[in-house]
């Protein structure tokens, strides 16, 4: 199986076929507690991370809080 291509935070990235959001975050070394994930314009609720599988061409945003006013 060849890797899938997604857009992650505005950049191309390859992930394993069928990778879930949880697997993506794990691969990035990110703890899910303090961030939020958007897939193709829709927020993915935290409890769904292990269940939501990414697909070829997905546009994914992974965000967190930074200092701001």
């Amino acid at each position, binding site marked *: 199986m060849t890797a899938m291509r997604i857009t992650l935070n505005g950049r191309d990235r390859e992930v394993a076929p069928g990778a879930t959001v949880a697997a993506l975050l794990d691969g990035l070394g990110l703890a899910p507690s303090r961030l939020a994930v958007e897939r193709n*314009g829709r927020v993915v609720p*935290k409890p769904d991370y292990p269940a939501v599988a990414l697909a070829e061409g997905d546009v994914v945003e992974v*965000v967190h*809080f930074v*200092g*701001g*006013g």
Partner: protein
Amino acid sequence: MLTIAGRIFPSRLFIGTGKYPSLEVARRALVASGAAMVTVAVRRVDLTQKGEGSILDVIEKAGVPILPNTAGCYTADEAVRTARLGREAGLSEFVKLEVIGDPKTLFPDNDGLLQATRILVQEGFVVLPYTNDDLVVAKRLRDAGAAAVMPLAAPIGSGLGIQNPVNLRLLLEEIQDLPIIVDAGVGTASDAAIVMEMGADGVLMNTGIAGAGDPEKMARAMRLAIESGRLAFEAGRIPKKLYATASSPVEGVVRSGA
């Protein structure tokens, strides 16, 4: 006590967490401010580098509720997306809604702000919109379901203090049923005190503290200014008069001659 959407806040000061020289300075200022809530921005995780501690650690240790903002958003759509992400990351319904219309002044885009407010209110958000000091816009935001109105005193980060006291007074007089939190433009403690003396329900500031020579000390100054300004407002100031009125009895003064 300040109440927003049924939630009671022990302080009337809201502070931002941007532009501090270090996390430690931010932590000290946060503690010294006794802030009701602290704003944070929602941004892409930088995947090229590992973070060492975050502002969220500092805020969580201080035990202050977070208020995610939609800073940097120029359309209602961007702001709504950002608010949704902020809610998911922070598990709070509160959002400081910004829809900016101009990069140089950072003045709000009224149309976008109203549109985003309506959408987010429908989705159950407690919307605190950053707006200009325009009474008509404020009324529309109220009608759209905003939980408070947050007019600017001067441009964001300018430190100019209240530039349009008349507009602010009109807003405070005409909108009695929603908290008015003055957001942006406060430069020093007296600016905050004046805003509170005018009857504002709270003040939100970032640069005024973070950019001060000693942010921790300025945070305390702001806390005290807001408390004293509020007390003065509640106490009711004396009317201004042109001529002097003696404070001591005019009878019984020892005089020479008579």
